């Protein structure tokens, strides 16, 4: 009996002690104001977010033993995330409810950190805006280790931006290690897609035309190089491509890779009749034409071009002064007729080399990349994004740029969002960043693709290439795409328009990149 009493007293004492300690703990509401914003990673502060984006989990980079993040919408609803470590993992349903009920308004995040001395500290409130307009639900990109010469594991993936689910569109494992690249969609529609495959089962283009897949060899008597940088005509029946003779060299300091073209031209590929055509205005031997893109009405083909390099002069003596201009040319697909070349923006005006033009689907803005020279901005740390107002013709550097490479951008179908690849985090691996586009063309502060584990990027050493927004999921299964890629016998051989009686000087199907064995 005594013994029972003894244990009872002990248990009551423990309970009492806990109650005392709990009561004695400081309340976070009495937290000491720090007077600055908290350091959070990724930086999800002062941004505009799409109302359909996945919960933007983050790390609080402040020392402490307990963490509390209070999320509140402009309309008043509130929820909290309490964590013993510095990872703030936001519950999906509460997040989505908050975003949906505050479209066009703001939401706030109050961060509290309990110090080891038990005191809570409060940081300045993070205020983010929720846009009215959704972002296209899927992001398609290529994942690859930073590429020098060799590649091994390459895959094209799609990510549902409303959550974290990533699935493979096609990986190169069953394709004898082929390189996969240059995925492209017609008007953000996943049902009209191409991607290129090099080496492995053979260099070719994989085409998904509303669920029907085919493998196309785009080389013709005109172009011995296969099709490279693509652009769908808005009618979905025509594709513009550059054909490039690509080469690579290296630098002794800084970013050590550099890529240049010895030659390049532009061709058009007609999907229904597998025909390649071109004209001398976009395939002249005197100039290197590349990076084609169509105006949303399909009446103009925009592209970049620079004088062809002199093969008798070492490339390193001429390439650093090679600057590309932005041109456009009218094209009538029905008549297959070309208009006259128009210089849209000259390097003489910008002092920089223009590449990667992409026009917003509403036709209002043209987003392009400029770097100190060359046509491969991915390897130029000074490459930045610029926005041109196509109504006024004015252009300016967007505020979303960083001191590292910013390039490879894509528009959402509603012209309100852009995604681009940025190496700002570490100068090595590109990550997709998103911006909201104001009516004026101004960009909001960019934010990185949200991840389920906010520490994801710490150990992720692959690079996100060519992020493209699409409004629907790619439904063609990887098994079907792989089977198409492996079915060499059913390769469609592109044929050359019989009216084309000149030849590209693209120099053959070689690239500086090789599969690792």
């Amino acid at each position: 009996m005594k013994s029972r009493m003894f244990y009872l007293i002990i248990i009551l004492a423990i309970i009492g002690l806990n109650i005392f300690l709990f009561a004695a703990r400081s309340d976070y509401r009495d937290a000491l104001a720090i007077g600055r914003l908290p350091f959070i990673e990724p930086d999800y502060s002062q941004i505009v977010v799409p109302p359909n984006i996945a919960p933007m989990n983050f790390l609080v980079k402040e020392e402490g033993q307990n963490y509390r993040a209070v999320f509140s919408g402009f309309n008043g609803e509130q929820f909290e995330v309490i964590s013993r470590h510095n990872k703030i993992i936001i519950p999906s349903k509460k997040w989505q409810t908050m975003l949906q009920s505050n479209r066009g308004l703001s939401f706030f995040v109050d961060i509290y950190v309990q110090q080891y001395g038990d005191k809570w500290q409060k940081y300045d409130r993070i205020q983010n805006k929720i846009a009215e307009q959704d972002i296209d639900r899927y992001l398609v990109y290529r994942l690859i280790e930073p590429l020098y010469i060799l590649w091994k594991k390459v895959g094209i993936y799609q990510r549902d931006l409303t959550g974290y689910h990533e699935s493979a569109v096609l990986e190169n494992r069953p394709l004898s290690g082929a390189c996969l690249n240059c995925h492209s969609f017609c008007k953000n529609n996943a049902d009209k897609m191409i991607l290129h495959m090099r080496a492995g089962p053979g260099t070719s283009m994989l085409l998904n035309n509303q669920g029907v897949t085919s493998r196309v060899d785009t080389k013709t008597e005109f172009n011995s190089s296969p099709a490279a940088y693509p652009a769908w005509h808005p009618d979905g029946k025509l594709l513009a491509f550059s054909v490039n003779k690509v080469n690579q060299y290296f630098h002794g300091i800084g970013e050590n890779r550099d890529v240049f073209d010895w030659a390049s031209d532009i061709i058009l590929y007609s999907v229904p009749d597998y025909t390649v055509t071109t004209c001398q205005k976009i395939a002249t031997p005197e100039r290197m034409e590349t990076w084609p893109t169509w105006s949303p009405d399909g009446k103009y083909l925009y592209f970049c071009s620079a004088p062809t390099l002199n093969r008798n002069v070492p490339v390193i003596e001429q390439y650093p002064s090679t600057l590309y201009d932005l041109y456009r040319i009218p094209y009538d697909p029905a008549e297959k007729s070309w208009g006259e070349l128009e210089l849209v923006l000259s390097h003489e005006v910008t002092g920089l080399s223009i590449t990667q033009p992409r026009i917003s689907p509403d036709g209002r803005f043209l987003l392009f990349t400029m770097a100190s020279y060359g046509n491969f901005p991915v390897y130029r740390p000074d490459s930045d994004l610029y926005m041109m107002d196509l109504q006024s013709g004015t252009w300016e550097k967007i505020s979303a740029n960083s001191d590292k490479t910013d390039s490879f951008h894509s528009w959402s179908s509603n012209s309100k969002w852009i995604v681009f690849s940025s190496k700002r985090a570490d100068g090595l691996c590109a990550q997709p960043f998103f911006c909201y586009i104001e009516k004026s063309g101004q960009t909001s502060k960019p934010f990185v693709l949200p991840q389920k584990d906010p520490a994801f990027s710490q150990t992720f050493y692959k690079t996100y290439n060519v992020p493209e927004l699409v409004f629907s999921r790619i439904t063609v299964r990887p098994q079907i795409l792989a089977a198409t890629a492996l079915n060499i016998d059913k390769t469609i051989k592109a044929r050359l328009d019989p009216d084309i009686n000149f030849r590209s000087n693209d120099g053959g199907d070689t690239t500086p990149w090789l599969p690792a064995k």
Partner: protein
Amino acid sequence: MAHERSKIKAALFTLFLYILFYLYIWLRIEPVLIYQRQLPVFLKGFRFFSEFNRYPGGIVDYIAGFFRQFFYYSWAGAIILTLLLLTVSTVTSSIMNSGQKKTGPRFIHHIPAVLLLVLHSNYHHHLSHTIALLITLLFVRVFLATEGMRDIYRLVIFWVQLFVVYYLTAANFILFSVIVIINCTVVNKKLFALTYLIPVLLLPYLASLFLFVVSPKQVYTYLLPFEEKYAFVITPFLLYGYFVFLLPLLHFVKPGRFKLKQYEQVTGWKKFAVPAVLLTFFAGLAAFFSFDAVTNNLIKVDYYARQQRWQDVLLAVTQNGSYLPAEVYQANRALYHLDKMPSELFSIPQPFGTDGLMLSEDYALSAPLQNSDLYFEMGHINESLHWAHEELAKRGPTPWVLHRLATLNMIKGEYNAARKFLYVLKQTLFYNKWAEDRLEQLDSHSIDQSSVIRYYRTINIDKDFYFYATHSAAELKVLLEKNPNNRIAFEYYMSYYLLECQLGNFIRYLPLLAQLKYPAIPRHYEEAILFYEVGSRKKVNLGPYKLSSATFERFKNFNQILADHNRDRDAAQQELKAAHGDTFWYYLLYYKMPKNNAGENESQKYGEVG
């Protein structure tokens, strides 16, 4: 009682046999060399695992990757391999003893272990193949335990097992199916088992249509060892054939049917000893003949170079005498590190010229990390980084390449990139502590005080220049211009021009000898200077140095031998080789002046012999 004694004897023999296997693996094969050759990749965490659960055989690859890390220590790797062989042998025995208790000839169940030993003597053989085989055999054993069950239940069990075997061991499902179907139809005479063929034929098709993205070739070959080039190409066929035919043979070859008269007369301990000795003898023979000494030495050279055991590098290269490009490359590195490059470069045959000094692009692409090593030592940080990235692409995040990438980025001041590789390195087994220490240094900003980082920053290039992926003397020149005290750049630069026999460029940089405080002109430099002076009739300004009389004497003797043979190089070669084979003059006369025979080995990539 006799049965018990027999069991003890068998156990003792097994113990003896596997101790021999262990010693052979540990001391002869040396699992650390398998580690060196295959460079396993294994990271902690679900993200890494998730890459393996998406394809048939991935789980086995993952398991093998985990165990291969321990090959870092030969003794531990030998334990793993020996236990694996013992398990295969035990499961084989269990399969033989299942059902109708036909045990077959004594010790026959050790044969697969012997064959696997032969396969593992090849440094390309993957552990995942052996693990896949073992798992397949385990599933076979489980299926055999269902004998006596109703056919329909066995069919269902077979379907489930088939899928699991396919998922775990990829193409080994074929072996599983063949053993099961043969056993059911031929041994047990259950023709119903022919229906098992239906799922066997359908499974790969359906799985590759709906579940996995695999090519037809991968369906039928992945994790099978038939494509590897073994010393005995027949070995994997013998191994798999053994399992296919084991049960039918045990069934049909009744005890006593083929009686060997002499063997029948053997009684007592000899009945036990004869098969034991025979097995041990054949195991020894197989091990002896399957051992790939050339590849072993090549990897050893590479291993010693990685461990910076330079004397061992030289010893291994010269003892073996095959002078493969990779061996010459590492031997040259060793000569530098032992302060012997300017005086003993030509004591190693240099048939590959500058491609033995610095790897050509073709070779470098097959050994990127080795190429990165040299550039790192020279302080050509960007080029070392370039090749480290090639290694990352080629072999994945191995600890060594992560270590290198982190270090290079710290030297470059790219701390965020360095952090990334350090965080990944933290997920490895043996380098996590190093990574944690560096991360702490980065966080506390004390990394800039590191003597290694500071040293490489002093010799790294600070002005941009352009180059292609193949080596050139221009890179060495830039390094020297940045820091004339960069001794390795100097010696490689001088060696480069000696090997190219471009003595004008060589002479131009001789004044650096004094700056780098060489006590005298190194032997090969003297040989080249003398040859240059005689050939050009120009006196070279040697500053505080002068040519030794011994060199004059040797040159005189070299010319005398040539003259004795009427300047017929072919006739004089033997004598010259014996007296002056380790001189610049000999290299010039027999490697450089006639057709360069470096091309003969162009097809042999770094480390890809054998």
